[in-house]
């Protein structure tokens, strides 16, 4: 079901002083798959997401996105090219409205608008923004200041912002953190719908193993910055190494 390679790393490493946070990770995502990235705290999951999205420069190795070497690209360029992400700690513009937050990336994804155009004249941007808000269920809150909505809603807003970029690959860093179980499962359902509709590739860092097992088609397990295992949920669940270090088996 998954297509050709879309995001790939070779020997990707990041060193912070004496700590090798990510050590020679080689990862290959296929177009349209949902991949979960799991591992105990300090495994290097967030660092890996930062490397992929360009917020942290790589110490060594290579990142290829849609066949191009993007290792040296700054974060903004990667976002424009279709590599979107959400942050573990919510990053929204608190004084802008919910809708404006989404506008920001929607207007970017629809080509460079005339700088001084009136926003009302950009109907395409408006439609796309509202559509993305509807997808995550925030349409009713469009005109509230983003800083005033609840934490769970801000997480959803982040996803809407990322979607408005029309990404090919969506990197989600613990999107369900701080959400109720019900909210988390709603997100999971929506994510799958979006993926099916837009043929999106999703790499998700997630702690809740139930969600991971349900949502992911393949799982990559990181441990101490290295790839410990990779495979289907069943394969990973049966993997002896994974059980030892991560799933808390004897």
């Amino acid at each position, binding site marked *: 079901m998954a297509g050709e390679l879309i995001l790939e790393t070779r020997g990707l490493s990041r060193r*912070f002083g004496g700590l090798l*946070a990510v050590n020679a990770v080689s990862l290959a995502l296929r177009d349209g798959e949902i991949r979960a990235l799991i591992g105990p705290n300090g495994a290097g999951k*967030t*660092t890996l997401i*930062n490397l992929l999205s360009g*917020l*942290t*420069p790589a110490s060594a190795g290579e990142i290829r996105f849609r066949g191009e070497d993007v290792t040296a690209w700054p974060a903004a360029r990667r976002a424009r090219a279709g590599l979107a992400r959400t942050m573990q700690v919510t990053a929204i513009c608190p004084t802008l409205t919910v809708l404006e937050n989404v506008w920001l990336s929607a207007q970017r994804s629809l080509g460079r608008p005339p700088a001084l155009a009136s926003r009302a004249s950009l109907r395409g941007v408006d439609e796309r923004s509202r559509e993305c808000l509807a997808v995550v269920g925030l349409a009713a809150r469009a005109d509230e200041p983003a800083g005033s909505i609840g934490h769970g809603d801000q997480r959803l807003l982040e996803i809407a912002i990322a979607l408005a970029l029309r990404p090919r690959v969506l990197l989600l860093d613990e999107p369900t953190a701080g959400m109720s179980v019900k909210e988390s499962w709603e997100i999971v359902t929506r994510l799958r719908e979006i993926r099916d509709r837009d043929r999106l590739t999703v790499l998700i860092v997630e702690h809740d193993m139930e969600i991971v097992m349900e949502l992911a088609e393949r799982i990559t397990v990181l441990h101490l910055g290295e790839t410990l295992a990779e495979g289907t949920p069943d394969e990973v669940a049966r993997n002896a190494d994974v059980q030892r270090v991560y799933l808390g088996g004897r």
Partner: protein
Amino acid sequence: MDLTTLVLFQLLNGLVWGLVIALIALGLALIFGIMEVINVAHGSLYMLGAVLAWYVFGVTESFAAAVLIAPVAVGALSMGMERVVLRPVENEKVLTIIATTGVMLVLQHSVLATFGGAVQRVPSPLPGAVKILGIHYPVYRLAVAAASVAAIAALWLFLSRTRYGLWLRAVRQDGKMATALGIPVGRVYMLAVGLGGLLAGLGGVLAAPIVVVQYQMGFDILATVFIVVVIGGFGSLFGAAATAVLLGMTEGLITVVATPTWARITSLAIMGAILLARPDGIFRRRAIAR
């Protein structure tokens, strides 16, 4: 004067001036290092030190009295500023910049209102010159250099040997941890700003007989001190002091071939270039690693 003598003379001038700048910059760096507050009023505190020195000298005819009274008065005023103006806004760094700007306006124009806009001079308390390195050099300037070095040494001793010094360093390292350890952070802040003001005031007193005393003299020094603190590594005391001396001597050297104004401009330009050559290492906000 032949060239060697001139160069030596200007180098000495630069050294003396650099040491005065170091005093003032140390005050700014201390406040910045501990509270992350950029004290825009710092130049005005220096000016106030010089103006108070002029008054005290006028009344007592004693420069020693000025050296004792003026810096303490400026330090006390700074502690008041910390308590009244900075304390309510200390968590909003941009607000502290604006608040101290307000203090600068009030100080500067209060001095204009009382002291006037005219230029005043404080006579050198140690007239005469001594022969040093083959040139005749004003005794007072050498005394200024010695006094500055002594003050810097005293600051170092205070920070390294006393309980309050230890507290200052602890707050500087980690404010939250210091609070948890029971260090009265509020009092430490007040002390830091007071000390910073004391150093600026002392700089003003020492400079008064060398430069002219005037209500706008704080402006001239502000950019120099700012840039010294930035190049020195934002809050690093040693860095600030070393940079100040280097800056002073560079300026002194340039004065051999150019007017003082051009020397100031050139030295600021050089400092600016250093900043731009090393934006990451010195003052660029680092990307968050994780």
